[in-house]
């Protein structure tokens, strides 16, 4: 089937690109945009490694078509740092050793970003609930939760 051109804002930059309707957003981000910080994990919608922010909401980019992002605003992990300064959530992950292999990290950070937009002062329980769609196989959950709480404090 024929490709169509989609236009969207990616990390503040306007992008136009032809895509086939069957292309998943995660593949568009990685292959067409070359933004490989968004990880392609389980491809079943379970692991959350591909989490990005589309039009202000966190979504699993393996469970949405690229064409659905047409006209939208997309934020990926590459869009968080400003002027070479890590985002407070990124810093907090670093400082709290909230990663081991790092594969799940971009997804966790984007989900945490969305969470802190909703609720700048979450309890530990809220953080746990809101990160329940992200899986870490190095079992680093405790430090991830610590990092998100630390980032929340820093950002308030």
């Amino acid at each position, binding site marked *: *089937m024929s490709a*169509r051109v989609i236009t969207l804002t990616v990390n503040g930059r306007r992008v136009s690109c032809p895509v*086939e*309707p*069957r292309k*998943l957003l995660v*593949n568009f981000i990685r292959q067409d945009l070359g933004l490989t910080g968004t990880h*392609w994990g389980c*491809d*079943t*919608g*379970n692991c*959350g490694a591909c*989490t990005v922010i589309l039009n202000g*909401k*966190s*979504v*699993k980019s393996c*469970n*949405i*078509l690229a*064409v*659905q992002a*047409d006209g939208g605003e997309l934020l990926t992990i590459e869009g968080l740092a400003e002027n070479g300064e890590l985002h407070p959530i990124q810093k907090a992950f670093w400082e709290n050793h909230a990663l081991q292999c790092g594969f799940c990290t971009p997804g966790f950070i984007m*989900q945490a970003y*969305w*969470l802190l937009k909703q609720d700048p002062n979450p309890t530990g329980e809220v953080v746990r*609930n*809101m990160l*329940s*769609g*992200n899986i870490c196989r190095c079992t680093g959950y405790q430090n991830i939760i610590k990092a998100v709480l630390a980032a929340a404090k820093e950002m308030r």
Partner: protein
Amino acid sequence: MLVLDSFEYFAPTTVRQALALAEKYRGRSRFLAGGQSLLPMMKLGLASPNVLIDLNRIKGLEYIKEAGKWIRIGAMTRHNAIASSKVLAEKAPIMVEAANQIGDPQVRNMGTIGGSLAHADPAGDWGSVLIALRGLVQVTGRRGSKLVMIDKFFVNSFTPRLRSGELITEVRIPTPPRRSGGAYVKLERRAGDFAIAAAAVQLTLDNNDRIRSVGIGLTSLGPTNLRAVKAEKILTGQLPTAEVVEEAAKAAAAESKPVTDPLRGSQDYKRAMAAVLTKRAIMMAVSRARGGG
């Protein structure tokens, strides 16, 4: 890397356009709502439509509003919008409780109540909650709209009462009267998984603390979301004593029709859990109807 089969894609901006496309591509098209079930099914080859009609660009299908004796919810309303709805938190908190137990936060940001119902998964949560609330589904086709009782909506597993080209446009629930309470109690292997089993209970007490009316819906306990008719009969008109609640919970288990799931428990286990979950849900609903948490 997983590549989907090719399909033609349309993103209509009105219901009328969507229905016209569905008619044009009758039998070869699927509607795409939140896509949190349809896209995974397409990846697995369980669905391979030639044409995908994306409903996400249609304005006016995402709303929650009180209108007379009804609460009306647009079919494209996301689970997360229901989870954070003030109207529902006040009038029908079972909807909020259930929404928060669907999938995970990212899935709830995309997934819709209409899409979930149209998927007709016996492990789906909304069907049971609507059974408990005695809700209606508005189905729209080229000839107009009709309201379908939730009890008539599920024909079989993954088979809703929707003809080719028909679309869910709204969900309606009767606004529960005062002294009402509800609960959705779900058992999962881990957070975000499909239910091993779940029970939805919505009831209203009279001034003498007797159960005036009650609805009970069961999840993952049969080929579709089921109404526990016998359990409802046992409770209706009675004081919710421990004995009556126990009897109703046992009846719900007896009338459930679970099948063994290699991942989520045997038939016997699920039936045993049906009793436990129904009992808990009734007790919570009663406590809430009395004004407790």
